[in-house]
């Protein structure tokens, strides 16, 4: 028998003592019962009574825990409350303070899920540092799923719509039933050997918790973890979260979304290529302009007879540029062609050889090589060289006619 110092407890003392004893002895208990007098207080705390045929127990679930509950509790529901016992001293009433409330019956799978999740998390399988980055433009995509389900159809139609240039490698597996886990594990382990696979989509359509169970198995989680290729998981609907989702490098809400995450839009990438080709075309156009200006300048000097060798080499450079561009233009993607053709035309119009081909000639003093720009200069020279596109002739000047202006 317990005694206070003067042989009597105050009520407060006694309640405090009972409370300490209860809290020590019942720090973590689970109790099955039916909910009644359920009340959600404005503070967010939940108050209710747990009862069976013969007895009742007050229960309280504070806001922090209430927000995390996976079950919506209400009167009449059979639940399992896990918590600690305590005494609410002002009323001298003992009660259970809940850590967790679950609907009775759903328990085992839920518990297995939570336990495995906790264990794998502690082991580091969900570690963000281990997550692999997805490739930007995968050309070879593996899909692990049932070959007959809705999931594969959704994935394929999305890939066809956004990124049809890729190749898809389907690893057919059962997504539920006894074969599901070993088949999924084997597919994950074999895919690296298939060669060139850049990303894996592991998916299945919606179903009950039992249907999705394969994706909550430890063996599948570990196979995802050790897969050297990035894995995107998409299991069930938005609200379904599986262990596979936690381990996967990326979680997608649905198979369609997985496909959208994995590939870009072809149009966007094509626009990037076009942009680069555009810049390439602009670069070569600038080069043509610069070099043309240089030749024009040299031609003026040539007219003054000062730079024979340099004009010859400049003309050769131009010819060379024309030839190369012509060959390139023949190989270029057709819709990029116009910019190059513009450059080519500009070059060709400028080439002295073109000018000669059109029927013009250049006359030089046969003795000095100076270009003759006036009839009087030709008379003074006496013997002149007339340059055609394919060679030159030497001529004697026999007379001169004034221009009729």
């Amino acid at each position, binding site marked *: 028998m317990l005694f206070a110092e003067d042989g009597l407890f105050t009520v407060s003392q006694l309640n405090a003592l009972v409370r300490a004893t209860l809290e020590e002895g019942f720090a973590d208990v689970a109790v099955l019962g039916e909910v009644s007098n359920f009340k959600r207080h404005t503070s967010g705390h939940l108050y209710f009574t747990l009862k069976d045929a013969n007895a009742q127990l007050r229960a309280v679930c504070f806001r922090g825990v209430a927000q995390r509950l996976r079950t919506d509790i209400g009167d009449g529901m059979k639940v399992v409350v896990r918590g600690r016992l305590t005494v609410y001293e002002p009323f001298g009433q003992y009660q259970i303070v809940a850590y967790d409330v679950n609907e009775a019956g759903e328990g085992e799978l839920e518990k297995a899920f939570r336990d495995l999740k906790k264990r794998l998390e502690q082991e580091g399988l969900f570690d963000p540092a281990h997550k692999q980055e997805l490739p930007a433009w995968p050309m070879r995509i593996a899909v692990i799923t049932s*070959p007959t389900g809705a999931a594969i159809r959704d994935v394929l139609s999305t890939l066809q719509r956004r990124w049809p240039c890729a190749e*898809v490698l389907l690893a057919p597996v059962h997504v539920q039933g006894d074969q599901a886990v070993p088949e999924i594990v084997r597919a994950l382990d074999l895919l690296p050997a*298939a060669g060139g696979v850049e990303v894996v989509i592991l998916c299945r359509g919606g179903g009950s918790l039992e249907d999705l169970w394969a994706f909550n198995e430890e063996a599948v989680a570990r196979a995802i973890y050790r897969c050297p290729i990035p894995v995107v998981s998409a299991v069930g609907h938005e609200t379904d979260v599986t262990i596979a989702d936690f381990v996967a490098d990326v979680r997608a809400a649905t198979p369609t979304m997985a496909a959208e995450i994995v590939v870009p839009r072809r149009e966007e990438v094509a626009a990037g290529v076009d942009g*680069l080709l555009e810049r390439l075309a602009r670069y070569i156009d600038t080069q043509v302009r610069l070099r043309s200006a240089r030749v024009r300048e040299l031609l003026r000097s040539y007219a003054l007879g000062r730079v024979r060798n340099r004009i010859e080499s400049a003309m050769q450079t131009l010819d060379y540029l024309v030839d190369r561009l012509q060959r390139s233009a023949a190989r270029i993607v057709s819709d990029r062609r116009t910019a190059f053709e513009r450059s080519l035309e500009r070059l060709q119009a400028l080439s002295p050889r073109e000018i000669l081909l059109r029927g013009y000639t250049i006359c030089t003093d046969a003795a000095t090589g100076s270009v003759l720009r006036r009839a009087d200069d030709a008379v003074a020279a006496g013997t002149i060289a007339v340059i055609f596109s394919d060679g030159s002739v030497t001529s004697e000047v026999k007379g001169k006619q004034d221009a009729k202006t």
Partner: protein
Amino acid sequence: MPKRKKAADDDAQSEGLEASMEKLESIVTDLESGEFGLEEALEKFEEGLSLGKRCKKILDRAELRVKQLVENADGELEEKEFDGES
């Protein structure tokens, strides 16, 4: 990355899209920022063109190719056409 098995069946596949794009980009940036002799500039230009063309060729494939992974009796992996309608 292991070499993919059927690399030879399509020229455009031998070098990936991503690698080709990166190379093209660096060629363009190079040309725009540097001073090159005619010969070198043209060489880069032509390489850029053929890279661009390769990218376009890859991107222009309009039909998703779908294959199914099959393990044969010897435990070897084979790829077969996937009949999506089944």
